[in-house]
């Protein structure tokens, strides 16, 4: 008798109707969005404070460089000694005092510039100040050597190589970044999914053991049916949760960003000048078009199909192992020793993905790991946007599913024996023995 649909239905409904599952499903995106909003809000708040920096420039060379902006006010001190200046700054509770002494040459002066403050000043503030001084100092030195700085500026040539594949597709560096984003997101999503819902499978197996219902069930159903039913049912519940998260998350992001006018995508680090540069709307338009073009140029259909295949294959592979662990132990606290061999290849996949594939998508290491079934789902998914021949992808999928059938057989054996073993924390040696029963 085939009870698989019945078991899948029960597993699914049981997960989905669970109170903590429902709460997690609807609360998590709220918390996430709330957190993002809070961070964005706090960053803005942090930057809203106007800083006043006092400047005592005895050389009189750099005063013109420091023009007050919305966020930073420069207070130029004249005709005071350094000691007095320090006192003034301390009393007025200003952010700090920049002291530029008089010196014979620019080089001699460079070492003697000092910045006094109550606490250590922020790195960004210091970098800005240093850049201002450096620019001016270079200009002065250029002039002294008889070179017009404006001329240098004019002579500068910007080179951007136009990338094009042999088949004539135009690409760009932006394209490469996009490919990384797509591949990385797919791989990381799968990684997260395996960890969250693999654990869920394990817990559900342990629950059947601790509640002692297992013997009743397997007098009616074959263990392998129960095992598969669990894996499929939990996966469906997981996919449901993921879809709801994406949906709610998307809606909330849109609502929050329009209502509160907080620009969540904009990096608060971007300096005013950089923003000004890109603000040129024509340039912006061009970038957007190019980006869209690049996205469309990606092998989207290929990526989507392979994403589904690798996602399903990878999850089933790891899910069956999680189920075997659940069957082998009596409580969740006993699972630690068996978790390592599962987490190791997963971590390896993520590291190989984020370091090696980014470095060289078609290098030897990347290639090998995109065939090894325990890492291929993550690594291959990250490689596909950079163009992998279809036959290689199919080969990798075939290896993955082949291994899945082997691990399910392996897991089913452990499972069959383990679910009826109570009150015992087995060692690896015992697990090996179970395989022979």
């Amino acid at each position, binding site marked *: *008798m085939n009870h698989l649909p019945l078991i899948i239905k029960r597993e699914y409904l*049981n997960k989905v109707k669970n109170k903590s599952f429902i709460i997690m499903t609807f609360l998590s995106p709220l918390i996430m969005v709330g957190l993002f909003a809070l961070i964005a809000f706090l960053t803005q708040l942090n930057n809203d404070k106007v800083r006043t920096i006092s400047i005592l420039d005895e050389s009189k060379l750099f005063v013109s460089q420091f023009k007050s902006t919305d966020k930073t006010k420069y207070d130029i001190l004249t005709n005071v000694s350094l000691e007095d200046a320090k006192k003034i700054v301390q009393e007025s509770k200003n952010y700090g005092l920049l002291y530029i002494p008089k010196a014979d040459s620019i080089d001699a002066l460079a070492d003697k510039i000092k910045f006094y403050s109550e606490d250590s000043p922020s790195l960004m503030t210091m970098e800005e100040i240093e850049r201002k001084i450096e620019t001016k100092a270079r200009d002065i030195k250029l002039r002294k050597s008889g070179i017009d700085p404006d001329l240098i500026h004019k002579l500068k040539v910007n080179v951007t190589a136009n990338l094009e594949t042999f088949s004539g597709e135009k690409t760009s560096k932006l394209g490469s970044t996009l490919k990384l984003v797509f591949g990385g997101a797919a791989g990381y999503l799968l990684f997260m999914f395996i960890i969250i819902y693999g654990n869920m499978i394990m817990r559900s197996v342990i*629950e059947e053991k601790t509640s002692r*219902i297992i013997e*009743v069930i397997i*007098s*009616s159903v074959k263990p392998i049916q129960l095992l598969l039913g669990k894996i499929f049912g939990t996966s469906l519940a997981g996919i449901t949760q993921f879809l709801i998260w994406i949906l709610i998350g998307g809606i909330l992001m849109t609502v929050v960003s329009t209502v509160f006018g907080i620009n969540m995508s904009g990096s608060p680090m971007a300096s005013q000048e950089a923003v000004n540069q890109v603000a040129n709307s024509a340039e912006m338009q061009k970038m957007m078009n190019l980006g869209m073009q690049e996205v469309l140029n990606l092998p989207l259909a290929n990526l989507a199909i392979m994403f589904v295949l690798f996602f399903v294959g990878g999850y089933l592979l790891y899910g069956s192992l999680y189920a075997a662990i659940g069957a082998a132990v009596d409580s969740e606290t006993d699972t630690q020793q068996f978790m390592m061999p599962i987490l190791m290849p997963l971590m390896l996949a993520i590291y190989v993905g984020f370091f090696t594939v980014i470095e060289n998508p078609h290098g030897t290491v990347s290639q090998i790991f995109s065939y090894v079934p325990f890492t291929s789902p993550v690594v291959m998914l990250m490689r596909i946007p950079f163009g992998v021949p279809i036959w290689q992808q199919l080969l990798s999928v075939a290896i993955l599913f082949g291994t899945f059938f082997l691990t399910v057989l392996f897991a089913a054996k452990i499972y069959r024996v383990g679910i009826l073993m109570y009150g015992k924390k087995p060692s690896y040696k015992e697990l090996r*023995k179970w395989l022979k*029963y």
Partner: protein
Amino acid sequence: MDNLLVAENIVKKFGDYTALNGVSIEVPKGSIFGLLGPNGAGKTTLIRIINQITMPDEGLVTLDGVKLQSNHIKDIGYLPEERGLYKSMKVGEQALYLAQLKGLTKNQAKERLKYWFDKFEITSWWNKKVQELSKGMAQKIQFIVTVLHQPKLLIFDEPFSGFDPINANIIKDEILQLREEGATVIFSTHRMESVEEMCDHIALIHESNKILDGKLIDIKRQYKSNIYEVGLLTEQKAETEKYLKENFELSEANFKTINDELKFNIKIDAGQTANQLISHLTSKGQLTHFVEVIPSVNDIFIQTVQNN
């Protein structure tokens, strides 16, 4: 006799450990069959083999003359010793699910559950979660689920554990009733008094081997010791005792009485009859008590296991 279940020469090994060593049992149709044995003897392994939870390494199990196969699942109802229910599921939902796993349709299952829930007066539990039930309440649900699909063969492993005497009695009556309706019952327990009361056949397994089986009544006959419990009212106590000692094997007896009499367990030889003993006794005094000592299942169990 017509047997419902026959297990022949079952061998099951777990690694180096032999859990069952060539065990054979025959369970007659319509009987209540007691499967007895000390802890770890291999009873549960045998029961799991009958339920096709584990496969035997050697041997053959037939149900109604047919080799055990997967569609026999619906013909067997099993209440394991280690039993439980999904804690977070509602009682009704869960009973429906388990019934469907045994091959009932949803409507069939609903109808029969209604009958049993009415019978046990537990209709109000339908929407409760299992974790709200007491252990005894949960056991009732498990019992219902075991018998719901009207299997030919019912297997109960320690069915009374967790029940108070009243509920244990209800369950006992239900088991007897099911037997009346044609079911065959295999019954594994350590409570010898319920074996005494209910079983008509027993098999005793010890250290992976079957060491005794058959009709309970035959086994008792086989184990009878020709000992009679005797009470004799007489004036000359010492003299009578001496006389009896010369002719029979005596031992202390302990039973309640209202008279101040001689009390003995008297064993007669194979050649002698009870009548001969009585004529000896009546010649010496007034006979107030005369009972044949029948070995209890408890005695047989302990004696057989210790002798092996």
